[in-house]
């Protein structure tokens, strides 16, 4: 029976990720005094891209393989994910290390695709992506580790719902701020869309991609940003737990929508930073995240 929740997980994520992307685009458009594209536009984009011919411009296996790898890694993360505060059949077989590993694997797949496309701009994009990954993944790891430290367990559902059991403390508050600050970098939105900077390096890592391969990458990015928003909701706003699965699910989807609203407002009111400026920012975040973990060790 618990296997049903895996399917619900996948359906919710795969079905709603483009919708949230559409919400971001609509809100951004409103901030920019535009009508904006219809909210279902991302579905159409993916659908259209999937219908195009695959052009394997780099002609090597890495280039072909990377989009699938990225997509597969994020889908597996979602499969483990205890959406609506309900651990599913697979959750018990994985721990937070698996989640961090799989998320990093997605990033590695992007790097692989970029590096095997042998394009100068993709190389610059890849190096920026790598720096971003190295600098912001620790924040994600610390968030989960903090829960693990508090609960003395690496189990996914146990760490994620740590706040439910131990409540808010200074460490959680600090971590919440850090996570919010890093959120834009997690989801690759301004001011931290540095690795895709359209203006100077033309979508960076994805420059050589088109058609279904690009659709997979696009879908991967949408799923990834929805995952990070959901993780925030799950870890930091657990108090709306009613106990009924369907209600929980609905509440969390609404909460994710609110987080997306926040993301799009920040995204549309900031200029893109340079990589050197971003590094400075990230390093502050890492230090703060370390502090939060340190505090949690002392039970604060």
């Amino acid at each position, binding site marked *: 029976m618990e296997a049903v929740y895996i399917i619900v997980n996948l359906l919710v994520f795969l079905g709603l990720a483009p919708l949230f992307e559409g919400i971001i685009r609509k809100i951004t458009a*409103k901030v*920019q*005094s*535009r*009508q904006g594209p219809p909210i279902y536009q991302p579905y159409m984009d993916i659908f259209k891209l999937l219908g195009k011919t695959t052009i394997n411009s780099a002609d090597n296996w890495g280039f072909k393989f990377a989009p699938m790898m990225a997509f597969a890694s994020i889908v597996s993360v979602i499969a483990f994910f205890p959406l609506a505060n309900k651990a599913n059949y697979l959750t018990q077989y994985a721990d937070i290390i698996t989640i961090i590993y799989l998320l990093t694997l997605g990033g590695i797949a992007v790097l692989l695709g970029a590096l095997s496309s042998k394009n100068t701009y993709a190389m610059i994009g890849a190096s920026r992506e790598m720096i971003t990954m190295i600098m912001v993944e620790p924040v994600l790891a610390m968030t989960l580790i903090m829960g693990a430290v508090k609960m003395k367990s690496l189990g996914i559902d146990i760490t994620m719902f740590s706040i439910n059991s131990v409540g808010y403390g200074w460490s959680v508050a600090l971590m919440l701020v850090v996570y919010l600050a890093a959120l834009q970098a997690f989801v690759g939105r301004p001011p931290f869309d540095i690795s895709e900077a359209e203006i100077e390096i033309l979508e960076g890592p994805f420059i050589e991609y088109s058609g279904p391969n690009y659709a997979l990458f696009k879908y991967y990015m949408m799923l990834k940003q929805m995952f990070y928003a959901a993780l925030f909701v799950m870890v930091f706003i657990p108090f709306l737990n009613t106990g009924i699965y369907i209600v929980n699910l609905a509440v969390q989807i609404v909460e994710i929508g609110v987080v997306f609203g926040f993301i799009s*407002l*920040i995204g549309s*009111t900031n200029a893109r930073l340079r990589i050197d400026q971003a590094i400075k920012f990230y390093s502050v975040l890492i230090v703060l995240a370390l502090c939060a973990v340190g505090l949690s060790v002392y039970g604060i």
Partner: protein
Amino acid sequence: MWLTSKVKQVLMVIKPGVVTLKYPFEPHPAPENFRGRPHWDHHKCVGCGACSNHCSARCILVRDTCQELRIMLYDGSRCTYCGRCADVCPEKAITMSQEFENATGDREDITERIELFMLTCQRCGRCYDMENTNALERLDLRGYRYDSLEARALIRKTTEHFDPNVLKETEKYQRPTKL
């Protein structure tokens, strides 16, 4: 500091609201003075060729097929809509309309062609006031340009007066069949 400026920015953009139009789903008429696609009134046109003379894009072509018949042809595919033709027309036969949706797959859609029956004045050969009173007209080359209507060369050579060689060339010219 950072946060307040961002909040201010968001509040700032709420005031104008959405300003983009639903065009092309809703029409957006051009103002009265608009320099849209020019139209020729063949009742008013006297065939003086002033428009052809002043057309800086050279898309108004004139040709006499015989002594009595003059063809004026406006080829909108290169028109820059400067409106000089309407300015200089002595009979006000040219009006700049409000049409701006001129993209088309067929060149003939934006071509206007009028055939005028010309009479030669028995006394002087001129049918209308040729005196240049305006500085603009004074600055122009004399005589209308003789054109090969079929060839519609990209940029024509300014042959100031009737050149029999050009006529010979263009008479043999085969119009390219449609692709």
